[in-house]
């Protein structure tokens, strides 16, 4: 099935919110299990962007298990490459591959390494792990789309810590100058970095949404765990003609369980068997692989 680009891009009819929430719970349970099995996994960063990924892949991104190599597909770039377990889980939930394949996560030569790698994972668009490069690559793709007059979108997911990098702002300026309204940045604004708080490190005087606005972007802040706000924002893209759009998703690191939410140490912590048990119970969901039916 090839994507028909002449088809007018209409607002997407998303599944009911309860369905999206159920998907997200499964994705989060899977993130916990991946981190436990692989011995690493940036749980906090994966859980904070799980709802964003579930929303993007609920029919809004023009890509599917059948069209993941179609040149006309939308491109989703996970610039925060350390949050990649949430992407694997989302793709698995959407049927891109057999979820049991994820059992090899973070093992040598696995199809699912602990930072995003295009060479290992066919459904991953770019290789990341060093912050501040994905948005620039997205601007190159968006330039090409505009030159060729195509109806395609490039969505780049960044962390707020990533916005410490100067290269992000070089890219932001370029996207504005080139009027890239097919480029969308989503910032996972969980306010927790490896060892610091983003609001401390970037200064509390301005917000990320206002910084992007000053760089000429059309900017909207949403609750990154509220599917109504997320899906409404996606359906409103581009927010303005002739401007790149940014969704600053206000999120909570480790979102989903009482013991991981907002806890800095969950950036690196590997879940114990007890953590897993508690996580699955609180989420009321089982991981997508490794469970006897």
């Amino acid at each position, binding site marked *: 099935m090839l994507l028909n680009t002449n088809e007018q891009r209409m607002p997407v009819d998303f599944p009911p919110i309860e369905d999206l929430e159920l998907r997200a719970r499964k994705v989060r349970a899977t993130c916990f299990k991946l981190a436990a099995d692989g011995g690493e996994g940036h749980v906090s960063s994966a859980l904070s962007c799980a709802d964003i990924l579930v929303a993007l892949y609920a029919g809004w991104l023009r890509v599917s298990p059948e069209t993941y190599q179609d040149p006309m597909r939308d491109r989703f770039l996970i610039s925060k490459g350390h949050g990649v377990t949430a992407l694997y889980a989302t793709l698995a939930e959407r049927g891109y591959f057999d979820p049991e394949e994820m059992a090899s996560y973070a093992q040598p030569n696995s199809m699912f390494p602990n930072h995003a790698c295009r060479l290992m994972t066919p459904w991953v668009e*770019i*290789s990341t792990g060093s912050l501040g490069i994905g948005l*620039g690559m997205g601007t*190159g793709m968006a330039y090409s789309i505009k030159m060729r007059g195509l109806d395609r979108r490039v969505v780049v997911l960044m962390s707020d810590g990533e916005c410490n990098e100067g290269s992000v702002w070089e890219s932001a300026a*370029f996207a504005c*100058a080139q009027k890239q309204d097919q480029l969308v940045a989503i910032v996972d604004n969980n306010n927790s970095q490896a060892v610091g708080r983003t609001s401390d490190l970037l200064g509390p005087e301005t917000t990320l949404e206002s910084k992007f606005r000053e760089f000429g972007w059309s900017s909207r802040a949403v609750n990154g765990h509220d599917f109504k706000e997320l899906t409404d924002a996606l359906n409103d893209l581009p927010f303005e003609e002739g401007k790149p759009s940014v969704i600053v998703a206000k999120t909570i690191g480790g979102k989903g369980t009482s013991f991981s939410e907002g806890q800095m140490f969950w950036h690196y912590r590997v879940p114990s068997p007890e953590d897993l048990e508690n996580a699955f119970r609180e989420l009321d969901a089982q991981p997508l692989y490794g469970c006897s039916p």
Partner: protein
Amino acid sequence: MRRAFGDTLLRLAEEDERVIFLTGDLGFGVFDKFIETFPNRYINVGVAEAQMVACAAGLAMEGWRPFVYSIASFMTGRAFEQIRIAIGYHNLPVVVVGAGGGYTYASSGVTHHAKEDIALMSLIPGMSLLVPGDPEEVTKLMPQLIASDRPSYIRIGRFGEPTFTSDSPIELGRGRLVRKGQAIALLTTGGIVINALEAADKLQSDGIFPTVCHFHTVRPFDDATFREALNDVDTVIVIEDHGIQGGLGMAVQLRLAGMDRRIEYLRLGPGDEMALGNPSQELLMQKYRYNAESIEQVCRDLSR
């Protein structure tokens, strides 16, 4: 070389619709015709080398064949990580262009000296490394870079460099045995080949006939031509406008170390220090003994 680069780029763009050019706000006047002919395929990214490289990688993923262009020191130093990850890791056919490598911009000071550009780019596995010796090599090698379909770095000089002639064809990855002599082999890369040839000319009257072998491609290194250049030779002199680490000298030393006969090794070129005081390129070539006169003198001393 700058003119040859601009002219060739325009011709390539006419022949190949995938060619696109990005500049870090440099190249005043050089690309006017290109801008006029292909306004959308000329992107002035601004003084933002990191963004330029990442953007080029995105374009390459969309099927374009980007050239990214800045002064060699900024191109390779400032954007190193983007070159390593966005281009190298993704193995994309982007041509990274460093204008004015080595001490081309000597008098502009240390910020503009680029005697480590080849070293930096050599750290990226699989990246072709080119340092053409004259405008004709620039013209002939550029289309071969596109055809090679892999990451590459090319250092180009400034305007109005002299040319040299050789029967040896200009092929990516092939050394050029410009003169076959004996006892001494002068191995060069970049515009310095002209200095070596000038020295070799002057030495003839004294019965000294050094071999001159020029490597416009430092990687992949042409081992066959290198071995051929060593025939009848007991001393090798590498001459390069580059620091001690990571350039042609190091490539040659590695090979000499593995050989079964002893060959004396000398290297003429910039030292392992910051060249302070904004001296001219001529002064630095004299100081580090890689102008034509110094090369000639070194050969005479060796032949006594």
